Every structure is written in C-alpha cells, then in structure tokens.
C-alpha cells in the first residue's frame, strides 16, 4: 500500500495503458468480455483517482503527489509528476468521463470492438499524462502522443467523412504543437544560458527571467498550440468536422477533455511563464474569446444537425473559459477552471444524449425529429436538465462557472463582461429552440416508436446529472481545492514579478506582490 501511495499518480496514468495491453489478450470474438474488461479498467482507474481527491490537501498551493525519477539525465529531464488544485479536477474529469464513454460505446461500437477499446485506453493514459506532467518534455510526449489514438478513433469508427475530419484534426493540432516544441527547446536553452545547465522542469522554469521580447515570441509559440486545441476563434474550423464525424465516445472525450488541454496549457504555461506577454496581450485575447462566444453561439443557432450545434456551443463555452483565464483575477480564473469542468460534464452529457437518439433514429437532423417528450419521456427529461445546465441556469453547474467568469471579467474590463453576457442569452436561444423543436410538437411517424433509455444508458447519464446539480448547488466542494493554487498562479503571473529586460543574472530583491487587476 505504501508503494502505491508513493506512485499513485503513475498508477492512475498507466493503469489504462496496462489494461490496453491486457485487452489484446482477450479473443477478438468475446465482445462481452472485451467491453466489460474495458469498463472495469476505467472504473478501477476512476476509483484510484478518487484517492487523489480525498488525499489532496487544499491548503497547500504547490504540487502534491509528486513523483520524480531520472529519465534522460543528459538533458536534465526527468519523469516528474504532480498535481495541484488546477489539474486535480481535470484528472478526475478524465477518469470519470472515460468510465461513461466506455459505457456509452457498448452498443454504439459493433465492429473492431477490441481495437476500439484498446485505442480508448491508450487515449486515457495520454490525456491523464498531459495533466500530471511537471516536465515539459514529458508533457509534450503525452500531448502529441495522445493524437494518435484520437486520430484512429475518429478515422476508423467515425462517420462518412471521417478520413477528412481525422486528418484535418491531426495536422491542424500538430502544426500548433510543433511550434510549441520549438518554444520548449528555446526555454531549455534560455535556462542553460542563465544557470549553466538546461532544464525542462516546469517548476524551475517558472523562476526563469525572460526578456520581454523573448516572452512575446515564446508566449505566441505556446499560445498558438493551445488556441488550436481549445479551439479559439479563428482556429476552430477543425472542431465541427471532428465532432460530427467522431463516434459518440470520441466526441465526449474530444469536448470533455481534449479541448480542456488547451485552456489547461494556457493556465499552466502561458500565464506563469510569460507574465509580461500575458498582460500585454490579455486584452487582445479576450476580444478573440468574445468573438468566439458570439460567433459560436450564432453558428450554433443556425445548425440543422444537433451534433454540430453542440460542437459550436463548445466554441462559445470555451470562449468563456479563455475570457476568464485572461481576465487575470481570482474569481475569473476559478470560474474558468470551474467552467472547464462544467463544459466537460454538460457537453459530455449532451453528446451522449445525441448519441442515444442517433442510435435509434439514425439521424441527427433537428427538423426530422420532434415530439420526443411523448415518445421517450425519461430521455427528454435528462435532455432538458443537461441543456439547462449548458445554458447556465442557476442551480446547475453552468451558472456557477459563468457567474464567476462574468464577475471577474467585470472587475478587470467591464465592457467585455457586458458583451460576454449576451453570449449567455444567445446560448439560451439556440439550446431552447433546439429543445423545442426536438422534444415538443408531434412526433413524425417514423420516430414515434423509439424505446426510452435502457438501464445502461440511464446508468451512463445519471452520474452526469448528479454532477450537474452537485456542482451547481455545492460548489465549495470543488472550489476549496482551487483557491491556493489559483492564488499562487496569479501571483506568478503578475507583471511586477521581476522581469529583467537586459541585465540578466543580476540578483534582485525579494519578489514584490501586487494586486493583479492593477493595470486597469
């Protein structure tokens, strides 16, 4: 037990990988065993990750559950893992959504089942690895390596245009990542120039003095990679394609986890590493986020395909997250983290709901459906709750996140908050309108005899519904773990932290703290 305690994060990260290779040993034809085994692995991993939550000390701002092993000593890079209040919930979200995604795939995937769950488990390791790495090189390995299983998930089990969508997703994200790689190596050299030996350790790099010009270049090298992943307008074009073609579980993970990697990256790298550039461009990025919110909502409004509607709503929701991050104050950043979780839960649930109806009706066209409330009452009730949470109705999780973000944004740039709040209204418009068309009215003949949710599907959705209310009503359960980490993050991101433009290597006095919103 003691050993497990010492490498709990490694266990959480690599249990799925181990499971994936054990999965290959099950004969191809035993579909039932394959599905149950995959489910068991993800469930075990979720339970393991719960230990992280209960063992987490919310008063400590730094990283916890740290592990360090030598990896490539010549490069001073090591296998460093750890989580703080920001990554803790993202890890939990990953393991949680994985369990549900596997459940949701039981009936949706009927061909090449073993390969499918193999890829899913590989993906889980990759996703968790991204959130727990404290070494930039290790982070990058997970960050890019994770593209491979996702690529195959979309490309093999996706819809009719899957090949186009998957390659677009792969190359689009790769272009962003490779520039970040240049940035990573550049940081390494910079550290070597100052300290005599390079490092990829994130914690050490936080202490690096970077001149303002270099900060700007590096900031954009990292930001581009993350912005493509988020995706921030105008880099979002891969998203609707990928979502529409991906299988249900692929969409759930894409929206629920993969997009969060972008915003997580901004929090973990852009803010603390390049505080000067962050403040320089925060306004500009917030404008991009606002455009994303409005544009995503308007695009969602005119979609005929419900899955595409959800995809565009993601663009809008992630716009809120980015807005919150770059408002650079505690409320907004916590709101952003909260909203990342919300979006994972609500949009994940929405994609599962869309998947359920697609399995029955074989269409996702809003106009083709109608009157579902009479046909599938339980399903419709779930749909309604999830949609309201996505809109941000008080009492649901969405409200907490959006409220915090808007409040924080109002403090730093009031006009932006006003504009952003129209996004909330627009989200009500497209969601409720879609609900109205799909759930009410008269069911077309073709779609009037679909069975309601079966126990497995109910089991998939109920945990998400519980989460929606839990996070909406008792938010301190989550935010209490975030305070210390966000405070430290924002301290690291203050511009008054000594940044030496020309004279490197000269000792400066103790770091001075300053109120974050000072610039305004």
């Amino acid at each position: 037990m003691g050993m497990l305690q010492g490498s709990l994060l490694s266990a959480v990260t690599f249990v799925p990988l181990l499971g994936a290779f054990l999965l290959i040993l099950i004969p191809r034809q035993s579909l039932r065993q394959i599905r149950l085994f995959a489910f068991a692995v993800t469930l075990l991993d979720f339970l393991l990750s719960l230990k992280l939550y209960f063992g987490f000390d919310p008063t400590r701002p730094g990283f916890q559950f740290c592990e360090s092993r030598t990896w490539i000593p010549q490069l001073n890079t090591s296998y460093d893992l750890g989580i703080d209040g920001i990554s803790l919930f993202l890890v939990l979200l990953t393991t949680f959504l994985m369990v549900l995604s596997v459940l949701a795939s039981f009936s949706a995937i009927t061909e090449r089942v073993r390969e499918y769950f193999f890829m899913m488990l590989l993906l889980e390791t990759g996703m968790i690895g991204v959130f727990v790495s404290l070494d930039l090189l290790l982070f990058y390995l997970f960050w890019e390596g994770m593209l491979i299983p996702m690529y195959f998930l979309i490309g093999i089990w996706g819809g009719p245009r899957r090949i186009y969508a998957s390659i677009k997703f792969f190359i689009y994200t790769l272009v962003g990542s490779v520039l970040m790689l240049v940035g990573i190596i550049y940081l390494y050299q910079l550290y070597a120039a100052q300290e005599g030996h390079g490092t990829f350790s994130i914690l050490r790099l936080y202490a690096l003095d970077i001149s303002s010009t270099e900060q700007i270049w590096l900031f954009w090298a990292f930001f581009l990679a993350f912005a493509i992943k988020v995706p921030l307008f105008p880099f979002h074009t891969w998203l609707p394609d990928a979502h529409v073609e991906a299988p249900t579980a692929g969409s759930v993970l894409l929206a629920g986890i993969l997009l969060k990697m972008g915003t997580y990256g901004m929090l973990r790298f852009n803010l603390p590493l390049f505080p000067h550039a962050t403040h320089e461009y925060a306004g500009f990025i917030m404008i991009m986020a606002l455009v994303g919110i409005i544009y995503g909502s308007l695009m969602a409004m005119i979609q005929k395909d419900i899955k595409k509607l959800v995809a565009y709503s993601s663009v809008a929701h992630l716009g809120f997250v980015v807005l919150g991050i770059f408002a650079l104050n505690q409320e907004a950043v916590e709101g952003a983290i909260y909203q990342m979780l919300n979006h994972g839960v609500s949009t994940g649930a929405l994609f599962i709901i869309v998947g359920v109806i697609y399995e029955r009706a074989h269409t996702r066209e809003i106009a083709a459906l109608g009157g579902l409330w009479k046909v599938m009452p339980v399903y419709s009730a779930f749909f309604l709750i999830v949609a309201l949470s996505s809109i941000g109705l008080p009492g649901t999780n969405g409200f907490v996140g959006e409220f915090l973000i808007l409040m924080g944004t109002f403090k730093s740039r009031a006009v932006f908050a006003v504009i952003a709040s129209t996004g909330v209204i627009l989200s009500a418009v497209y969601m409720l309108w879609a609900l109205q068309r799909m759930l009410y009215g008269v069911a077309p003949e073709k779609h009037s005899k679909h069975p309601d949710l079966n126990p497995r599907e109910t089991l998939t959705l109920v945990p998400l519904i519980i989460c929606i209310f839990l996070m909406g009503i008792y938010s301190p359960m989550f935010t209490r773990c975030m305070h210390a980490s966000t405070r430290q993050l924002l301290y690291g991101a203050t511009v008054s932290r000594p940044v030496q433009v020309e004279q490197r290597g000269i000792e400066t006095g103790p770091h001075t703290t300053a109120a974050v919103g000072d610039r305004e």
Partner: protein
Amino acid sequence: MNAISPPLVSLAALGPEMTLLLTGVAVMLLAAMAPAFSRRYAPYISLAGILVALYALLRLTGTVGTAYDSMLTLDSYGFFFRFVFLLVAAAAVLLSISFLTAQKILHGEFFALLLFSVVGMMSIVTSKELLVIFIGIEILSVGLYAMAGFQRENVYSVEAAVKYFLLGAFSTSFFLFGIAMVYGATGTTFLPAVADSIARGTMHHPQYIGPGLALLLVGFLFKISAFPFHMWTPDVYQGAPTPVTAFMAVGPKMAGFAALARVLLTAFPSLEVEWRHMAVVISACTMLIGNFAALRQNNIKRMLAYSSIAHVGYVLMAFVAGSPGGVAAMMFYLVAYAAMNFAAFGAVIALVREDEELVDIDRYGGLGFKNPVIGAVLALSLLSLAGIPPTAGFFGKFFVFKAALQAGHTYLVVFAVLNSALSLYYYIRPVIFAYMKPETAEIKPAPAFFSLTLVLAAGTFFIIWFGIYPTWLYERVTLTLDSLYRLAAL
C-alpha cells in the same frame, strides 16, 4: 606523427572487415561451385559471418590508435558505426531472404555483394585518410550498383542500376578530384595533417582548399542524396529490389554522414563558418524538396525515397550546429532512422508475392485488419518517420532541433518543424488505406518468414525503446564524441 605505434600490420584491427570479406568470397565461390547448396545456405553463412565479425569487433572494444601506418584509425566513433553497420548488414540479409525467395532470385552472389558493400561502409568510418575513405566509398558503391540491378528481368531494376552507376561514377570522380585539390593545397591527404596545414598557414596552394572541400562535398552529398544531388534517389529506390532499397536508404547514408562529419570536423574546422552556412541552405532545400515531392507519390518505395531525402535535410541540421551536441544528434538520428526505415521496408517486403510486389499505396485497403501485425508495424514506423512521440523518430528530430537551436538557427528550426508537420500528410496516407478504407481482395495473409518477422520485431522494439527511453543510446553516442573531438584536435 603517430602517438601510438602498434605493429605495422595488425590483423585484429581489421578483424571484422576481414571476416566479412572472407565470408563474402566463400559465399561467392560456393555460388559458383555448388549453386544449389549456395541458394539454400548462403544467407545463413552470411549471417554467421556477420556474427563472427561482431565478435571480432567486440574484441576491439576500447582499442584506440592507428594501424597500417595511420591508414586506419581506431576510435570509439568508428567503433560505434562499425557496430551499427554490422547490425544493418544482418537486417539487410534477413530482409532479403523472404524477398529473394518470393521473387525466385535467391542467388549466393547477392549476399557476397552485400557483405562487400558493408566492408566498404566499415572502411569509410575507420580511417582518417581521404584515400582510404575514397576506396571505401568505391567498394560500397560497386556492390550496390550490382545489387540494384539484381532483378534482371525487371526493366526498372536494370534502369536503377545503370542510373545509379553512371551518376555514382560521376560523383566519385568529383570526390577524387577533390582529394587531388586538397593534396595540391596541403601536400597531404591525412585529415589531421590537412587541418594542421590549414591552421598553420603552411599550405602550398591555399587557393585550392576551398574548391577541394566543395568537390569533396559533392561526393558526400551525392552519397547521402542531399539537394542538389538527390535526383537519382527516387528512380533508383523505386527500381532496386526492395531489400536493396532498404539497405541503400540506411547503410550508405550512415556511412556518408559518418565520414562527412569526420572530414569536416577533423580536416576543416577552420572553414567551419563556411560549411555551416552551406549546411543551412542545403538542409532547408533538401527537406523542402523531399517533403513536397513525397506528397504526390502513390508508390510507397518512391514515397519512402523522397522521405529519405527529407530526413537527410533534418540530419544536415546537425551540421548547422557544428557542435558536439550536433554530431551526437546526427548519430542518434541515424540509428533511429535505420530502425524505422527497416521496419517500414520490412512491412512493404512482407506484402511481396511471387507475381508482383504490392507497392501502390491505394491498394493497401484493409491491410491493418486483414494483416494486423504488418499493418501495425507499417503504421508505427510511418508515425515514427513523421516524428510523432513516443517513437524513436521524435527523439531523433528533437535532438537535431535542439542542436540547431542551440547554434541560434531558430528560423531553420521553425522551418523544419513545419516541414515535419507537413510530412505527416504523406506518411499517414498508407495508414489511412490500411485502417480506414474498405478491404481490397489483394491483401492476403503473408507467408510467414521467420527472418522477416525478426526484422519487424527488432525494428518495432527499437522504435519504441528509443522513443520512450532514449537515454541509453544517447549516452553511447555522446561517449564516442570525445574520441572524435579529441583526436581531431591532435
């Protein structure tokens, strides 16, 4: 001049080469005298010879010095490459067995030629004497010319041989001319002496040294198929029998790079600024041309030929750095490249049938599910060639990029990473067909060849090992640098 003077003739120093040479001669004689026996056992005799050579080489571990009146130099840099070359030779023999059997052209001579070529490669890296390097290149090339045309019935194979021979002969004569110029300038062809002469300003005709270096570079750039001397590559790679292509894409390139690094660092450190600038331009052009031309290929051998050109561009970035880190990156890259290239070609060879080779990418439909092992190896090696972690290809690129960035060439690195992202587009195409397109009837389960499976397994193993834990190889590589730089300074 020699700090260490071992006996004039040291058989042990040449042990591995001698072994290969004798094995080659034996295989050739057998082929003439007992053709049936040779057809059956030649590959295994060759493998045994390679194993003995490996043993002979390992006995030389740690031996440093010169032999044969400074014609040979034993150092850990050369040792590293000789070791890798023997593994490359073994992989080439193993790959050839199934291919030649399927095509019914398994003759003993093939293996003799292969062994001779490897002797050439090994001589290239065991010397600091330009003439020996030249002779090594010739030995290597002559074997390759004949191997390229080994499918006598196949018109493309013959074309490949003729093309390669004519252009290769040209390039080696340029190389020879370069040696003459260097000799004219400095009065010596011994690399440290050349460096000495340049550094002290005691050259007889300083005006010849620049052109001399340029002509030497022509020879090298041809061998490694770098811009602008890459034109022969696609046709020759496409026409040559596939195992020969696999060998050609790895062996001679490695030898060329190894010797290029040695020549530039040992003899021309004083012209470093010039050759580093040249490397920037050549590297950028080579990767760009390789990648763009590869985008449109449907023949996988041709695609891999252009891809190999692109990879030469990446490796050349190591010379841009000109630092020990750069040479280490080059060596790491070459080994990683060997592993992934053999794996990729192994997968292509696995699809060879009696009547024809399956080299058109658009006929790979459903390969991944009909033939899971071959499909997986192909996909893995292609992703590694594209540089996606966690594969050997990623760390190869990583080290090279790091070295170039350290030297301050940020623009070149940005250019290279964008190139590398672009390359994914053509590397992924066979994967798309193998896994995402409907099955075609042409894919049949491959006949099981243990030899081929061995190469595929080894390739996969190295790709993943170096992709997750590059430490071991990188350590080996950096240990050899010392010898390269210390003796260079001698």
